[in-house]
């Protein structure tokens, strides 16, 4: 096998898998599941093999769309540290999720559709990771949105799932609206859509000198719009929590580890563009920070185990976006990398809990699961520790320190926000652990819970390993990712560690103190807590806005179309013609002789005009 063909195989294998399920094994869920899982395992192997491919290796590209005028959109591959590392994440978590799903979706009717969707997602995500140009990235960008639609709407006969799928797709489309304009602006200004060519033109040739800052800012922020949609940043964050209507393994793969991180990945790809415009980075950083803060606050008062994790994902994505905004794309990618493992772990863990509790998702109906599900409990705690950034022993610690360090150097206000979020994270995650795993069982379902089957806990254990070690130097050496792949290079400063450790302990302690032994939400009556619990009423506001601006506008447009436009353009002339015809009809008596008279009169007139005039 030519190693240059490796990326093509990684890209197309899942597509063929999805296509063959769609075409041939649609009726048989089990065969489909095995095909898809097999493919994902092969992909993992290939993903590891990809690490050996050198930087900038030439991979044959497919000229997908040759528009003429020297604009060619290729399906091409940019192989560098960034894409190799990201590919490892995608294939590794993809494989874990496939295996987990084998058990989780065992008795589902739409198993074939589910696995086809997963495979198709793997294909799309691979495309994003490998993309060497904007349009190709956009193509796969849309396709991940589509596969996410299919998977969120997997249980489409539930109203909530159907609505969530639609919401996710549409919200992403709004982001893509900006993204497309951004791509066009970049193309219009730099005359290229290829990342390397743009980088050369922008950084080396300074082609953008002299372009007004307003236009440059519009360009950067429009591209960033894509990330807002895909990575669920404010104000387009609303789809991600709702996306939890999908099966839990899907949430782990798509809505925690990979797809939502694509926005950050894209920003890291084009990080060189951000400093071109004064102020754009600032905007990006603040959007990220506010998203992180608000999401963390919302997470405090959620009662659905998956939603807590969803808001935590939002919060972490906000971190990464903030890091990109302050020109620390390395730190962002590092956090993306580590976060992918432990968040996937947490989601799969929550999936195991939900599975054990017979699809109960309310944390107040669980409790005391630590004894019944020890493996799940231990791995979940490891994931939680990584998420909180427990110093020195978890991967999350290093990556979060990298971001905090960058913020401390770059922007003090952002640092304060970020540090506060450390506290909040520790609080809500501890609350989750305490309520779900400790104490007494609070429902029949929780009482009957038992450890999940082996197919489910093995992925948990496997994911727990990188959750711990993915921050260390040796991990990168082993994976041949160093030195260019962003990773930990020692803590920024002792002070930073102390600050975050104090905040961490404070958060954990508060949560223990507040939730130990409680059987229902102790802060239920608190007005502020209610605001958090209701997600700052953003969804309600959006529903209202959509009602006014979209449906209202549509209604008005429809009315105008029926009455004004149709009236002016069609009915008014039609009425005029009818009136005129009515007048003319009086001449049509039906009497032959009057016609004859008129005819003869006409003849006489013609003679007069021709002969005598």
């Amino acid at each position, binding site marked *: 096998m030519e190693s240059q063909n490796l990326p093509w195989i990684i890209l197309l294998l899942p597509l063929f898998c999805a296509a063959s399920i769609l075409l041939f094994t649609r009726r048989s869920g089990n065969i489909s599941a095995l095909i898809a899982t097999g493919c994902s395992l092969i992909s993992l192997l290939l993903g590891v093999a990809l690490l050996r491919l050198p930087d900038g290796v030439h991979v044959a590209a497919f000229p997908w769309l040759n528009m003429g005028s020297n604009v060619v959109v290729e399906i091409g591959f940019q192989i560098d540290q960034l894409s190799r590392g990201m590919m490892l994440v995608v294939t590794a978590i993809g494989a874990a999720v496939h295996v987990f799903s084998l058990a989780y979706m065992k008795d589902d009717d739409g198993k074939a559709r589910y696995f086809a969707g997963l495979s198709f997602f793997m294909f799309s995500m691979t495309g994003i990771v490998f993309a060497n140009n904007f349009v190709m990235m956009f193509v796969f960008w849309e396709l991940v949105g589509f596969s996410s639609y299919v998977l969120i709407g997997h249980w489409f006969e539930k109203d909530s799932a159907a609505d969530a799928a639609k919401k996710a797709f549409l919200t992403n489309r709004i982001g893509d609206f900006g993204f497309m304009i951004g791509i066009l602006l970049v193309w219009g200004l730099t005359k290229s859509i290829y990342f390397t060519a743009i980088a050369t033109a922008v950084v080396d040739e300074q082609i953008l000198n002299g372009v007004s800052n307003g236009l440059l800012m519009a360009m950067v922020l429009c591209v960033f719009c894509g990330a807002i949609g895909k990575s669920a940043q404010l104000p387009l964050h609303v789809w991600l929590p709702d996306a939890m209507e999908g099966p839990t393994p899907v949430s782990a793969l798509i809505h925690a580890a990979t797809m939502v991180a694509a926005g950050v990945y894209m920003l890291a790809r084009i990080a060189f563009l951000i400093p071109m415009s004064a102020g754009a980075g600032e905007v990006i950083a603040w959007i990220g920070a506010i998203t992180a803060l608000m999401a963390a606050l919302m997470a405090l008062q959620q009662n659905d185990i998956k939603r807590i994790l969803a808001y935590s994902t939002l919060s972490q994505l906000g971190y990464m976006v903030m890091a990109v905004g302050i020109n620390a794309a390395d730190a962002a990618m590092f956090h993306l990398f580590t976060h992918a493992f432990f968040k996937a772990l947490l989601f799969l863990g929550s999936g195991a809990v939900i599975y054990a509790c017979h699809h109960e998702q309310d944390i107040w109906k669980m409790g005391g699961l630590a004894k019944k599900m020890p493996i799940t409990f231990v791995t979940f705690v490891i994931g939680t520790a990584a998420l909180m950034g427990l110093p020195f022993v978890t991967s999350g610690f290093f990556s979060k320190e990298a971001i905090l360090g960058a913020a401390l150097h770059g922007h003090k206000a952002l640092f304060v926000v970020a540090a506060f979020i450390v506290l909040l994270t520790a609080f809500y995650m501890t609350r989750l652990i305490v309520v779900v795993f400790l104490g007494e069982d609070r429902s029949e379902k929780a009482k009957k819970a038992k450890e999940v089957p082996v197919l489910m806990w093995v992925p948990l254990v496997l994911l727990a390993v990188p959750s711990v070690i993915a921050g260390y130097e040796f991990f990168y050496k082993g994976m041949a990712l160093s030195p260019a792949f962003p990773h930990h290079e020692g803590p920024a400063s002792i002070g930073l560690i102390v600050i975050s450790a104090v905040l961490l302990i404070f958060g954990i302690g508060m949560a223990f103190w507040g939730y130990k032994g409680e059987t229902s939400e102790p802060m239920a009556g608190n007005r502020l807590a209610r605001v958090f619990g209701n997600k700052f009423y953003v969804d309600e506001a959006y529903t209202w806005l959509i009602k006014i601006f979209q449906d209202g506008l549509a209604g008005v447009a429809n009315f105008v179309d029926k009455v004004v436009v149709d009236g002016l353009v069609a009915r008014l002339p039609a009425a005029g013609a009818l009136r005129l015809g009515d007048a003319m009809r009086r001449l049509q008596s039906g009497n032959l*002789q*009057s016609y004859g*008279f008129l005819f*003869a*009169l006409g003849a*006489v007139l013609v*003679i*007069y005009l021709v*002969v*005598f005039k």
Partner: protein
Amino acid sequence: MLDLLFYIFATLSVVGALGVIVNKNPVTSAFSLIAAFIGLAALFIQLDAYLVGIIQILVYGGAVMVLFLFIIMLMDLPSEERRKFGWGPVAGGILLGCVFVVQLVRVLADYSAGSRVMQDLPVGAASDVEQIGKLMFTQYYFPVQVVGVLLLVATIGVVVLSKKELD
């Protein structure tokens, strides 16, 4: 002499024509029309168009008018009843006829070539029957065939139209 004959036959045809339109009874109208056709035929003969004149009498005065009379009698039509005699159409028709005649007079007054007198035909020239026959069966051969087809179609059409079951 010939001029006198012209005036006699011209008067005959005009009076016959007027008779067609003033008579209430269609049978009388038909007979007036025959008179007008005979006058016309005589005028044709005066123009040395013997064949045409004879055909005029045979076809129009004979066949066509017999057909008309047949139909009139077949329908057993009474004379036009005097119900709601409309002056409008009568006045309009007469007015238009008069206007037409006035225009005719003015046109003819300006038509200088019209004041020619008739020249005698050259002596020894072929008769009109021969000449017309030659033309019809050489130069106008194809139109003659077409007219033949037309007559056939008309015949069939009449048969179809006259069928009782027509509805």
